């Protein structure tokens, strides 16, 4: 996405975008995944490329054709439906998660759309003997203005590890 006009931190549009991201994190940490789906546009694209270690001059540090996620609404609904079954063992007992959202910057997009960049740190703890895991990532979101308020139309997650240190991505970032 091309850079647009960075909005001042007191701008109402920035405040709305920031509130959207914090409220979204609250839904995820409350495991209200159905509620979370309600924040997504029907044509959502939710992608998380595989990051790789390359020489500085290589000109790329993620794989163009392989992600950890590359989801449309159907795939995300299936993931949420699965977590709601009685057989999604990896999240039953559930992880304790905390999505820390910070460094939010908002850019004016086309029309009333906003582009929001944020930093995310996900803390995830399972059981009582395992070490917790952390996932650090940057996110670039396209937030679409709708009659019901802002909705997420696209999210690109730039994870900060080439080798993830969490047992799986049965979580949303």
């Amino acid at each position, binding site marked *: 996405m091309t850079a647009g006009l960075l909005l001042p931190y007191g701008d109402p549009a920035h405040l709305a975008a920031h509130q959207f991201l914090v409220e979204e994190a609250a839904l995820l940490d409350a495991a209200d995944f159905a509620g979370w789906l309600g924040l997504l546009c029907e044509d959502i694209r939710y992608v998380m490329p595989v990051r790789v270690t390359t020489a500085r001059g290589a000109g790329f540090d993620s794989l163009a054709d392989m992600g950890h996620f590359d989801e449309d609404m159907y795939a995300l609904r299936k993931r949420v439906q699965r977590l709601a079954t009685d057989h999604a063992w990896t999240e039953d007992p559930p992880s304790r998660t905390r999505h820390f959202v910070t460094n939010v910057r908002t850019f004016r997009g086309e029309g009333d759309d906003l582009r929001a960049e944020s930093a995310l740190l996900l803390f995830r703890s399972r059981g009582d003997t395992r070490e917790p895991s952390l996932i650090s990532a940057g996110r670039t979101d396209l937030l679409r203005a709708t009659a019901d308020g802002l909705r997420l139309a696209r999210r690109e997650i730039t994870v900060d590890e080439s080798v993830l240190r*969490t047992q799986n991505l049965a979580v949303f970032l």
Partner: protein
Amino acid sequence: MLDLASVVSQVRRGMIPAHVYADPEIFAAERDRLFARSWVFLAHESEIPDPGDYVVRRVLADSFIVARDEAGVVRVMFNMCLHRGMQVCRAELGNASHFRCPYHAWTYRNDGRLAGLPFHEEAYGGEDGFARAGQSLLPAPSMGTHNGLIFISLDPDAPALADYLGDFAFYLDFYTRQSPAGVELRGPQRWRIKANWKIGAENFAGDSYHTPHTHASVVDIGLFREPKASKRKEGALYQAGPGAGTTYKLPPAGNEHSAFTDQLRYVGYPDAMIPVMAAAWSGRQRALVADSRFMPSAATLFPNLSFVHNWPQIDADGTVAPFISLRLWQPVSERETEVLSWFAVDAAAPEDFKRRSYTAYLMCFGSSGMFEQDDVENWVSITDMAAGSMARRLTLNSRMGLTSEGKPVKPPLATFAGPGVAYQGFGEYGQRHWFGLWGDCLSREAR
């Protein structure tokens, strides 16, 4: 003190001492006796298509550069500078004509030959002090390729790769040679799990028994119709050469003349690909699908390369798309494994099929896959439990499919089209086959 002979003898009877899944002494024996000798997968040629392309991969702690040199030849070189031992290439992939060590700028061509070092004349007195000619990064002791899959062995006296693969090569073609163009690999996704490396390898070798329960959620949500116990137990489990795997039983075809086409359509292959697959595979390979009606699904090539082929529903219209994944269970320690999971697809497949297949892969396997998520939860838990003292008093029963006298509960399939031995129904044949090979390795001398 570890009694390795006793562990191996129990394992050969299908009784697995539970501590083998978290035991540092076992891990050291695996390093010195198994990984020091076996053929191990590193990369696929499609990952380095052009001269200068390289990837960096490990065999346990040993880092190797897998590069295509200027002449197009694939080279595997130990990634340690001849001078002071620095890791020469610290990126995991890229394109380079030369690799220059950051420490003192010794520079190697992408075929491993030492191209130059600073002040050769002043510092060493030229060739007299240090003979530059003939110096090269250490090549992998043995290297071989099959269907573009690049394997190495740390044993310079390893048997030829083709001899090692033996009858398992028949099954490899279902995953890696669907057309003369061969397969292309994308990825890998890489992540670390707190699980012993053997558990995944064993699981893919033959655990059809876990599918109905561990993966019940994917049936619940209508993602994949096959794992129900009633269907899963109709599949055949085969053991062939250094590999073993599972299959699904396909529904009867309407017409015997179109059986091969019907079966491949059922799992979601487009009509454009089916004649190409028919031509790429032998009569016996076609017969496994068309006559025996078994479609290969999960498999493991000993020791730590696994394969999977499933065909989930990828959209609300009910489109079924097959995908293939290769995965390496890269041991980190007795309690930790790095998983490298590639998406694999026929290089000549239509682009829209590749896209559907990629979607299917991401939904099912890999770091976010809805199958794999639940597998890893189980494997981490097993490893945790195996680390304590009580696990040393427990042997796990891996004798499913055997009578008390060690005879098969049911005879092998008489009409199975593939090589090796195959059984229909649940049984831990593949896991015992895998552990038999493990026992053979651990009974060898360390090197």
